[in-house]
């Protein structure tokens, strides 16, 4: 009985030393994964995912505190690429965070704006031009459509406008789902969840 304890004890210590040495030699610092996740997120900094911006949400995902389907502006493409990166199952968007809308841009009705700079402080990407008591306006090309400026405005002069489509930004539509996927009684089941 004693020899059994002795043998296993020696074995344990021997391997412990080996692992200690390996742990030192293969030390890992920093976590490049947060960078990768942040690169996928759409950077609207809107906070709909419950985190104050995309970077905090990325770190939360990296250490498994947050799920990957809480980003409405990113919508399905972000969820699928996050699932791809992290090897998880893509889940539909979490309704509680909002639903996926076409890209919007904020617009200030200049006749109502009183120049109170509340929206300027709220904008996460500084895309509102203006100063105290001066006219405010939104730089359309910089606005990410995060809607954070709509709430603070005391006179509600900001509303969201869909982005204007021009000939260059026009996209070819996806070909219609094949007729054989429409059931015999006409109710077409959705495009196969081929997206994984």
């Amino acid at each position, binding site marked *: 009985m004693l020899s059994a304890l002795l043998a296993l004890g020696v074995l344990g210590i021997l391997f412990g030393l080996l692992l200690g040495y390996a742990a030192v030699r293969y030390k890992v610092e920093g976590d490049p994964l947060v960078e990768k996740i942040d690169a996928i997120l759409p950077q609207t900094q809107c906070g709909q995912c419950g985190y104050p911006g995309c970077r905090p949400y990325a770190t939360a995902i990296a250490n498994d505190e947050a799920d990957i389907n809480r980003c409405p502006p990113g919508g399905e493409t972000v969820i699928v690429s996050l699932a791809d990166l992290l090897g998880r199952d893509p889940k539909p968007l979490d309704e509680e965070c909002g639903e996926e809308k076409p890209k919007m841009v904020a617009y200030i009705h200049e006749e109502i704006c009183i120049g109170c700079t509340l929206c300027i402080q709220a904008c996460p990407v500084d895309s509102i031009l203006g100063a105290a008591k001066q006219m405010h306006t939104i730089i359309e090309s910089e606005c990410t459509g995060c809607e954070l400026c709509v709430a603070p405005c005391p006179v509600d002069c900001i509303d969201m406008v869909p982005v204007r489509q021009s000939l260059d930004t026009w996209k070819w539509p996806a*070909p219609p789902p094949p007729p*054989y996927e429409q*059931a*015999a009684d006409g109710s077409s089941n959705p495009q196969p969840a081929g997206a994984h």
Partner: protein
Amino acid sequence: MTLQTPPSPHIHSGIHVSSLMLRVIAALIPAIICYTWFFGWGLIINSAIAMLTALASEALMLKLRKRPLKPFLGDGSAVLSALLLALCIPPLAPWWITVLGVAFALIVGKHLYGGLGYNPFNPAMVGYVMLLISFPLEMTRWMPPFILEQLEIGFIDTLGVIFFNHLPYGLSIDALSSATPLDAMKTDLGQNNTVSEITANNALFGDFAGTGWEWVGTWLLLGGMYLIYKRVISWQIPLAVIGSLFVISAFFFLMDPDTYPSPLFHIFGGATILAAFFIATDPVSASTTPKGRILYGIGIGIIIYVIRAWGSYPDAVAFAVLLMNMAAPTIDYYTQPRVYGHARGKD
């Protein structure tokens, strides 16, 4: 009047999936006639049962998935799979064998994966392997060609055997059936007598392969050539299968003619030609890139020989095809052709 605006191109060559499948079925007809000439009405009856089961199970699955029946039943892919499976089943096998095999093939082998175009395995082979493993006895009860037995089993008697297991003149089923040439070769080799002795005294062996079987093989070969000429199947797979089988069997045959039969015997024996031209070239489960098809065919040829020479199953065509079906996605991934404008090396 709103103009139609589909994306280009606006014209089409007019070939349709069903025309492809019907051509393959047509290529099988002469071989079936020759088969019936040698081995009686068993195949015709089995084919009829198989096709009926195929259409029934396809319709059932399409109904379950709420899909329109019209385009799918008409495309002939289910009928083709059923016909190929019927060709691999012994002619006098009981009817429930055929029904079970075809139903399993189509439901599990094809429709569980999403129907036409999505099944990774060849449905006919899935059904055949399931039958071979589950009912070894019925599946090895083959028929010798009639000219050897000097007795013809008429149509009615064959029906009787298949449906009611009732045999004419009180014969027992075992008296009637015999081993296939491949089977006979494997067992006799087991008792380590040489190939030449085996083929000499056993009437089963015709001039270069099993009697009867060699003619069926020739007709299948002609059917296969017709399909290649009509560009219905790619030439790479049959050439690779037969070529690799010929090379490896010739190598071993030259090394030791007594224990390893001749390449011709291997090629015309069993279902090699049927597999090379009709089963392995099923586009859905095979590899799609030109280089990939050659690798896929070579793989099938080698596995057929390995199992026939050292394995325990006499005719390993089904296993070879399934194993290479398994490897097809990986082969496709690594054998992409060089695209226009890309340097030779880097892709």
